[in-house]
C-alpha cells in the first residue's frame, strides 16, 4: 500500500504542478537556509577530538590583579608556570605550546626565503592530539631536554619545500639554523582548533613544529596573544620571562578520573605554594578543564551563529506556514476524490496515511532541492568569510544530507497535519452529490 500511496502522491503532484512546486520550493528554501546555519553550528560546535576530549585538559591558574576591576583571569600560562608544570611530573603526557614566526631559506636558488607560522610544543603534543603523520613521526622527550633542532612539517610545507616526498632526515634552514625533519604530518585541521583557542579558534594549523624550549633558547619570534597584569621588572628577555605575562597554552592528558584528581591535587598544591610567594591572588572556580569544558569556558562558539540560527529558524517557520496554506488548498481541492475514495471503502485511517505520504513526498523532494540550496548557501558563506577563517570543514557530508531530507520530510508532515486532518474529515456525501 505504501508504494501505491507514493504513486498517488506523485500523480497528485503532477495534477497541479504549480501549486506542488511552490510547496517544494518553500520547503527547499526554508530547509536549505536552516541547514546552512545548522552545518556551521554543527562543525563549530562539534567535538574536535571526540575520542579524547574528556582526557585532554588545559590548566587555568588564578591569574590576575585584584587592583584591576573586572579583570578576567587570562586563559594561558606564564613562562614560569609552564616550565614548572612541565617539570612537576612526567607521569602524564603533557605539552607546553605557543606560536612563533620564522623565515625559512629553501635549498637552491629557485625559491625565495619566506615566513612560516610555526608552533613550539613538547614531544607529547603529537600523540596527545592524535596528529596523523604522512612520513616519520614527532620527536621524543629527550629532544625536548636536549633542545635538539628537529622539526615536523605540515604536508603543505613539505609539498612546498620537498615536492611532497618523504623528507625525514633531511635538513632545512629556519631562523638561520639547520633543522632536521623528523616527520611530515598528514592533513590535519581540528575545528575548532581547540588546543589554541586564544589565537583564532578556526585558524589554519601551523606549518612547522619544533621543541617548545627552542623558542626561548634560540630566541625565535614569539607570536600569538600575550596578556600581562603586572609590568616586567627590568628589560630584556629574562625580565619578560619572569613577568606576570601569560602566553603559553598547556595541555595534559589524564586517562581517567583517578589521574584527574591526582593531577588536580598537584595543581592545587602548586597554586598554594605560589600564593605563599605572593602570586596567584585571584581565585578561580576551576583549574582543570577538559576539551569541551574549555570550549565553553573560552566561548569558542560565536554568538553570531546563534543569532543566525534563530533567523534561519524563523525563515523555516515562515516557509512551513506557507506550506500549511498550500497543502490546505491542495487537499481541500481534492474533496471530491476523497469522497469517492470513502464511498469505495477508504476509512479515515487510510486517507490519513495517503495524505501523510503525499505531504512526505513533497517534503522529500523539497529536501533534495534543499540540499542544493544549502550547498549554494555554504559556498556563499565561504566567499564571504573564507578569508577570515578556515572553511574547508564546512561541507555537506552524508550525515548532514540525510538530516536535511529527514528534517524536510518531518517538518512538511508536521505542516501537513492540520490540512491532513481536514482532508480526512471531509463529509463524503456533500461532495458526491453533483459537480
Amino acid at each position, binding site marked *: 500500500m505504501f508504494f501505491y500511496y507514493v504513486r498517488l502522491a506523485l500523480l497528485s503532484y503532477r*495534477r497541479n504542478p504549480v501549486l506542488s512546486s511552490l510547496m517544494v520550493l518553500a520547503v527547499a528554501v526554508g530547509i536549505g537556509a536552516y541547514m546552512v546555519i545548522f552545518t556551521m553550528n554543527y562543525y563549530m560546535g562539534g567535538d574536535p577530538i571526540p575520542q579524547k576530549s574528556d582526557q585532554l585538559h588545559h590548566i587555568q591558574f588564578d591569574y590576575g590583579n585584584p587592583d584591576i576591576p573586572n579583570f578576567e583571569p587570562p586563559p594561558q600560562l606564564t613562562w614560569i608556570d609552564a616550565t614548572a608544570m612541565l617539570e612537576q611530573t612526567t607521569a602524564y603526557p603533557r605539552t607546553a605550546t605557543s606560536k612563533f614566526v620564522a623565515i625559512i631559506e629553501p635549498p637552491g636558488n629557485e625559491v625565495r626565503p619566506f615566513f612560516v607560522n610555526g608552533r613550539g610544543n613538547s614531544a607529547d603534543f603529537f600523540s596527545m592530539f592524535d596528529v596523523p603523520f604522512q612520513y616519520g613521526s614527532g620527536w621524543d622527550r629527550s629532544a625536548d631536554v636536549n633542545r635538539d633542532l628537529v622539526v615536523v612539517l605540515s604536508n603543505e610545507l613539505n609539498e612546498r619545500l620537498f615536492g611532497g616526498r618523504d623528507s625525514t632526515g633531511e635538513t632545512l634552514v629556519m631562523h638561520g639554523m639547520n633543522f632536521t625533519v623528523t616527520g611530515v604530518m598528514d592533513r590535519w585541521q581540528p575545528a575548532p582548533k581547540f588546543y589554541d583557542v586564544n589565537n583564532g579558534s578556526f585558524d589554519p594549523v601551523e606549518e612547522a613544529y619544533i621543541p617548545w624550549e627552542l623558542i626561548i633558547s634560540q630566541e625565535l619570534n614569539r607570536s600569538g596573544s600575550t596578556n600581562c597584569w603586572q609590568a616586567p621588572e627590568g628589560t630584556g628577555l629574562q625580565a619578560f620571562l619572569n613577568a606576570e605575562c601569560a602566553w603559553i597554552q598547556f595541555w595534559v592528558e589524564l586517562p581517567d578520573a583517578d589521574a584527574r584528581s591526582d593531577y588536580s591535587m598537584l595543581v592545587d598544591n602548586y597554586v598554594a605554594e605560589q600564593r605563599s610567594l605572593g602570586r596567584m591572588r585571584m581565585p578561580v572556580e576551576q583549574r582543570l578543564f577538559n576539551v569541551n569544558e574549555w570550549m565553553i569556558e573560552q566561548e569558542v562558539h560565536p554568538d553570531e551563529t546563534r543569532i543566525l540560527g534563530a533567523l534561519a529558524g524563523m525563515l523555516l517557520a515562515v516557509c512551513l506556514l506557507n506550506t500549511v496554506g498550500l497543502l490546505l488548498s491542495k487537499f481541500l481541492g481534492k474533496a471530491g476524490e476523497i469522497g469517492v475514495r470513502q464511498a469505495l471503502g477508504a476509512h*479515515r485511517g487510510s486517507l490519513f496515511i495517503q495524505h501523510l505520504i503525499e505531504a512526505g513526498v513533497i517534503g522529500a523532494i523539497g529536501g533534495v532541492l534543499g540540499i542544493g540550496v544549502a550547498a549554494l548557501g555554504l559556498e556563499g558563506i565561504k566567499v564571504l568569510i573564507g578569508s577570515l577563517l578556515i572553511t574547508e570543514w564546512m561541507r555537506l557530508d552524508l550525515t548532514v544530507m540525510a538530516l536535511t531530507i529527514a528534517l524536510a520530510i518531518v517538518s512538511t508532515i508536521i505542516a501537513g497535519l492540520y490540512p491532513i486532518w481536514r482532508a480526512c474529515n471531509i*463529509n463524503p456525501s456533500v461532495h458526491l452529490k*453533483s459537480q
Partner: protein
Amino acid sequence: MLKMTHITKVFRTDVVETHALRDFSLHVAEGEFVTVTGPSGCGKTTFLNIAGLLETASGGQYLLDGEDVSALNDYQRARMRNQKIGFIFQSFNLMPDLNLFDNVDVPLRYRGVKAAERKERVERALDAVGLLSRKKHLPAQLSGGQQQRVAIARALVGEPRFLLADEPTGNLDSNTAEGVMELLHEINNNGTTIIMVTHDVVLASRSARNIQILDGRIIDDRRAQQKAA
C-alpha cells in the same frame, strides 16, 4: 437485505433545520431492482447516502444484511461499503489522474486483494462494460457514456451484493442511457440488489418496484405485478 424503520434525517445549520427524511420505513429484499423517484429536494440522495453508509441517520433503525449499522465505527462502515456496496454517481466521479485500470482497481486496493487477482478482476470488469481495450486511457479521453460504464465497472469489480445508483443516466443522452440501463438489468439478473434514483418516469415505470418520495416520506411503493407492500 435492507431494512429501514422510522429513519429520520435532520440537517441543522445555524439558521435552518431541514428534515430531509421523516419516518422513513422501507424493506428491500435480496435481488430486487428498486427505482426511487420524487421531486428535487425530496430526500432521494439523502436516502441513498444513508443506505450506503456515507451518512448517518438522525433517528430510527437501519439494518443492512441484518446488521444494525448505527453501532459501527468509521472503520467498520468503510469495510462494509467496500465489501457489500457499490456506488454509481450521476457525475461518474472517476479520478482524473488515474487511468481506467487504476480507477477500477481502487475498491480492490482497499480490500487488500493481491496484485495478480486484482489484475484479473479489473480486466474482467472492464471487459464486461466493453472498455478493456482502453484500460490505459484517462477518464478525460472518454465520452460521458463510456465514463459511466467505467464507473459501473468500478462499482462491480468488488462484486457487491448491493448497488446504489444516484441518477446514473442523468448526464447521458437517451441512447447511451438505454445501454447503461441494459447493463444494470443484466447485473440485477445476476443477483445484485439495485436501488436507483432517477428522474426518468419511463425508466421508473419499467422497473419491478418503484418508490416515490415526497418531502422526506415514502408516498408510493408500487410493484409491477403485485400490490403495494
